[in-house]
């Protein structure tokens, strides 16, 4: 019987060999850089409890793949890696080892409701630095992420940095109450400048401050931020001071010119409490990754400690890095019955030198020229002339 269902569930993808190969390279490079910086890799289970990870992950409920176990408990396919890692750190008493540096390369699952172009399963790689409150931890993860982007040769990569706590404090200074702050935040999260300006007009703040408020949306440098900082407010003054230090560190590490400081940048993830950032690169229409300080998430697990990290989307990185030629392997040796032994010896010799060698019995191939065209080099031991 022939199976007729060739369709895959919405958002599920096959990785063809040249993609799988590219991913393996990407994984090797990325995880090596993490480990060089002292991050230990870990793997968490694919299935988690809905009640913990499902609810804490800040991924919308309708994007979770849910199923029931044989006890009737609701499980989810992990929608992110940050919350499982927070769970591990909170439960496994890694406290004596604080600060903990953990890295991962894992697939995560998010159900899609629309057409193609959006995977429902994709790989993420990233790190979590847990137990360090300082700006040096924030700087460390930003630099680490940008080193990975650089190593992968992502073109014109850019980082946008915002600060949740500082923005909150400034909005309070403008005289907004919690409800108004939430409305402003929503407009900023949905990147709706039209709505943002309409809301600002309707807030009832003093007319001479409206222009300054609206300009929040257009800040690009820390110098721009200065106009909103009340230096008599010690919280704001300290946070701003820290941002300046952070800027110095990241610039010293080769990031000058590729960072935008946008005070209005906020994440849809509500557990970010401090610095937030997002990565972009030419070639992908979607952000390559994001991260930030998420002390609020650790709090939900009962830990009052600082945590920061980033995650990069492998599917989008693949769009942003130049595709390789689609060679299956380096070298092809075609043999016939009489040259079988000779072909094997030749292959062994080349393989010990690190060359990828495909051995193929020539009469079994129907279109020999097309097949040979897939390889960089062809050695013909099947009687035909080397081509």
């Amino acid at each position: 019987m022939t199976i007729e269902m060739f369709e895959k569930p919405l958002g599920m993808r096959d990785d063809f060999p040249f993609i799988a190969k590219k991913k393996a390279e990407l994984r090797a490079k990325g995880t090596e850089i993490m480990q060089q910086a002292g991050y230990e890799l870990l793997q968490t289970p694919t299935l988690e409890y809905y009640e913990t990870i499902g609810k804490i992950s800040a991924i919308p409920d309708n994007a979770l793949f849910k199923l029931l176990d044989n006890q009737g408990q609701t499980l989810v396919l992990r929608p992110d890696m940050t919350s499982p890692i927070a769970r591990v750190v909170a439960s496994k008493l890694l406290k004596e080892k604080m600060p903990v540096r953990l890295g991962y390369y894992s697939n995560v699952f998010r159900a899609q409701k629309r057409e193609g172009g959006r995977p429902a399963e994709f790989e993420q790689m990233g790190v979590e630095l847990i137990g360090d409150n300082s700006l040096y931890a924030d700087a460390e993860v930003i630099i680490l992420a940008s080193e990975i982007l650089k190593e992968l040769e992502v073109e014109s990569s850019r980082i946008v940095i915002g600060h949740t706590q500082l923005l909150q404090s400034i909005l309070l200074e403008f005289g907004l109450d919690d409800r108004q702050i939430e409305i402003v935040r929503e407009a900023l999260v949905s990147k709706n400048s039209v709505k943002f300006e309409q809301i600002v007009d309707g807030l009832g703040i003093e007319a001479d401050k409206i222009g300054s408020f609206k300009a929040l949306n257009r800040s690009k440098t820390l110098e721009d931020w200065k106009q909103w900082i009340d230096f008599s407010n010690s919280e704001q003054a300290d946070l701003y001071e820290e941002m300046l230090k952070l800027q110095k560190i990241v610039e010293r590490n080769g990031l000058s010119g590729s960072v935008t400081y946008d005070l209005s940048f906020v994440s849809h993830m509500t557990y970010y409490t401090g610095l937030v950032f997002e990565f972009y690169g030419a070639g992908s229409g979607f952000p390559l990754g994001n991260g930030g300080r998420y002390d609020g998430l650790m709090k939900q697990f009962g830990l009052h400690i600082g945590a920061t990290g980033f995650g990069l989307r492998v599917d989008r990185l693949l769009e942003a890095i130049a595709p390789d030629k689609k060679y299956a392997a380096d070298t092809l040796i075609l043999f016939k019955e009489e040259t079988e032994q000779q072909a094997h010896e030749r292959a062994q010799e080349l393989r010990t030198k690190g060359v990828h060698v495909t051995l193929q019995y020539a009469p079994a191939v129907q279109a020999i020229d097309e097949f040979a065209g897939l390889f960089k080099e062809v050695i013909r031991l099947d009687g035909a002339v080397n081509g």
Partner: protein
Amino acid sequence: MDELTIAMPKGRIFEEAYELLVNAGYDLPKELDDSRKLIVEAPNEKIRFILAKPMDVPVYVEHGVADVGIAGKDVMLELDRSVHELLDLGISQCYIATAGLPNTEMNPVTPRIATKYPQIASRFYRGKGEQVEIIELNGSIELAPMIGLADRIVDIVSTGKTLKENGLVEYDKIVDITSRLIANPVSYRLKQDRIQELVEKLRKQAVR
């Protein structure tokens, strides 16, 4: 200077949007609407236009194949794409409303609503606490109540002339619509200076 790709809606909004760009000081080719080309270059400004169906503009922009685009708020509300909404251009003013035959009540058991905007219609009736069945049509929505397919329609009203000519009356106004300048979130960061310049130039021209 990087090239900027702008997705423009074909049809009704196109001329107004194009005029707005010309008035904003962009040096663009004179005639391009009557050509059948789908991609038009404006080399003097390093701009490339993609001419798309209005409903598709946010899709091109979301995927980043167009950096910015001009899209009706109706399309934005219906599709809910993750794009930056940068500026209200104030052009192509109209609104979305419900309409039906005069002096009629909705069917109390299964009220049926015909529309090109299923999301907007369903959100509106849910907000009113009414359970309705949405019937999606692609055009000539006014037909539906006339031939008994639906009790009400949810559609764009600009002058009200079409409704009147077909013997329909407006019931509730749902939301005002104008065209918006939208941008891909990545392009917005990578080509921020060019896009910001476009916003400021258009802001001066936008209809208030």
